[in-house]
């Protein structure tokens, strides 16, 4: 297809229409076409959550250039906020008007809580740069996780390593997202309902980040990333702009965390280990930092590849050797690790970088050659 055609208004319209139809029927194709289709829809739901997370982290790392290795902490804060307000675990201690708040309000609360934690992290690390910042954010993430793991006494706040159970599903637009719904002759199961819910929020977040990119704030972030001193000299308030990046990235994480908790029905500290932060960072970097389509692509690849490998490896082994020679779980992580290394070696700028970044890399090549 001609690339130029896609840039015309009509081309764009057609692209979006096709994309919209694909996204709308995707879960039905999956459930219809595969034996274990529901688990595939589930995997796609998680991929959408990861897209939201990666876009949030992209604000911090990709736009503002602040390397954050503890991003999953905000996801955790959002998830626990949702879990605490929407499960029997803590409700006895809370005033009744805090029980099961309306869905949109709940998301605002989760975003706000995560944003506050973002400021909490951002304020002390304003002066830090590069790797120091990375390690402090990493430490912050671990601290949050260790507290979640241990705050079951003296007051049982988080129920420790067992986590919180029986979290209410989302009730929104008169629907209970935990129960199947019959509509147009189709049975919308929980995974389907959540697919559309998460997809909707995904689109909102994509829209917001797209609009942010070229806004005054977005340009200030890029200036900050490229050269902090020069940005300051140009009249950008470094402190506020940095804090805004942390808080905004964090609140995106908080929203996806809340959706995660409601979807899963269960949260425990195990879901928020450092490896998760690293995975989200990999999505951003592999896809192409600062470039939204790239980041989305990265999130899809990183979250779906292990799922596909899970389904492929066992039959393949049995076909080749007649039995399972190695543990599939190990093998799929191994392949995943190797893929990460090779992608970075071949395309250090990411799979789908912005034109500007690709050009920067190109410049570098010429510099090296000269």
């Amino acid at each position, binding site marked *: 297809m001609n690339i130029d055609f896609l840039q015309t208004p009509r081309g764009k319209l057609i692209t979006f229409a096709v994309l919209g139809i694909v996204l709308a029927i995707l879960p039905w194709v999956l459930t219809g076409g595969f034996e274990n289709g529901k688990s595939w829809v589930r995997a796609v739901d998680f991929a959408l959550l990861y897209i939201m997370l990666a876009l949030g982290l992209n604000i911090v*790392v990709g736009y503002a250039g602040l*390397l954050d290795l503890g991003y999953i902490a905000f996801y955790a804060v959002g998830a626990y906020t949702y879990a605490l307000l929407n499960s029997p675990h803590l409700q006895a201690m809370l005033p009744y008007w805090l029980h099961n708040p309306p869905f949109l309000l709940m998301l605002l609360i989760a975003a706000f809580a995560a944003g506050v934690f973002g400021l909490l992290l951002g304020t*002390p*690390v304003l*002066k*830090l740069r*590069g*790797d*120091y910042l*990375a*390690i*402090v954010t*990493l*430490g*912050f993430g*671990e*601290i949050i996780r*260790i*507290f979640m*793991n*241990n705050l079951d006494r*003296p007051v049982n706040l988080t129920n420790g390593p067992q986590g919180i159970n029986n979290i209410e599903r989302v009730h929104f637009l008169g629907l209970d997202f935990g129960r199947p719904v019959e509509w147009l002759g189709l049975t919308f199961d929980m995974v389907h309902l959540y697919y559309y819910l998460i997809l909707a929020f995904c689109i909102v977040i994509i829209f917001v980040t797209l609009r942010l990119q070229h806004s005054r704030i977005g340009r200030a972030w890029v200036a900050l990333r490229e*050269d*902090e*001193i020069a940005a300051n000299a140009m009249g950008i308030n470094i402190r506020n702009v940095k804090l805004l990046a942390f808080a905004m990235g964090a609140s995106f994480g908080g929203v996806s965390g809340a959706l995660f908790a409601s979807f899963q029905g269960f949260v425990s500290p195990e879901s928020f280990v*450092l490896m998760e932060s*690293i995975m989200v*960072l*990999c999505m951003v*970097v*592999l896809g192409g*930092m600062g470039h939204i389509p790239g980041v989305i692509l990265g999130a899809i690849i990183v979250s779906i590849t292990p799922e596909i490998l899970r389904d492929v490896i066992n039959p393949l082994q049995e076909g080749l050797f007649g039995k399972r020679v*190695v*543990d599939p779980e*190990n*093998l799929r*992580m*191994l392949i*995943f*690790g*190797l*893929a*990460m*290394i090779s992608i*970075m*070696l071949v395309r*250090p*700028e990411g799979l789908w970088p912005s034109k500007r970044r690709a050009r920067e890399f190109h410049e*570098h090549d010429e510099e*090296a050659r000269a």
Partner: protein
Amino acid sequence: MDIFIQQLINGLIVGSIYALIALGYTMVYGIMQLINFAHGEIVMIGAMVTITCINLLLDLGVQLPGPLLLLAGLLMAIPVSMLLGFTIERVAYRPLRRAPRLAPLITAIGLSIVLQQLAMLIWGRNYRPFPSILPTKVHDFYGAAITDLQIAIFILAFLLMGGLFFLIERTKLGRAMRATSQNPDVAGLMGVNINTVISMTFVIGSALGAVAGVMVAANYDQAHAYMGFMIGLKAFTAAVLGGIGNLAGAVVGGILLGLIESLGSGYLGDLTGGFLGSNYKDIFAFVVLIAVLIFRPSGLMGERVAERA
């Protein structure tokens, strides 16, 4: 038993191990400004190879005193780790030397995953016990217990650090390393073969890491495919605490971190009236780190680096 002295001893032993590993991080960082995320995995591989080697010798019925068996294991593990360190640099870091800093970070994380999974495939998912070949005699030290092993760990760690300092300060290779860390391009112009220097840095750091891995395994009587992650994280914290890129800083940071962790987790329960217990042990590393970086952003002994335009 005197708890304070006991915790002090434990802290010093663990701290000296942290310091050995931290040296590996800090050497690489000093020269390439790169966090070698896979260093923890080298530590783990060192421990695993040694255990396998000792078990093999025991199975063959070799009659040797425990320390010699351990030495044989080490002599096997050190070259393996060195080779691994060399390969890692060649495969994952060298091609990206001029790439932006996040790219090698991702390959490092990828490598770390690959090595962990390989170790799981080779050695299984369970804890591997350290063969009980070492004398378990306990000495009394001012009311605290200390074993021969702990004394040996402490002495060996400091001998190795001394050796490293000699290497860096007094030998030709050391001078080349210092020159490269100051300015690789100029060092290259002055006739330093930068590629060799960087390779050697990885090799030396990996050797220290392998020894440290054996120390960890012997000290806790076990090894595991995931052990490298947490210990690497703490050692890296120690390196940052001391001022990353600074060798003396890594040693000071390592020892300090060991002491803080050990004393902190020992007394935290008493201090907070039972509100927080020793299960918060892993928090100390990070809280201290954050506090140091806020008040002294370049670490305890790091130099203030001028901002690059």
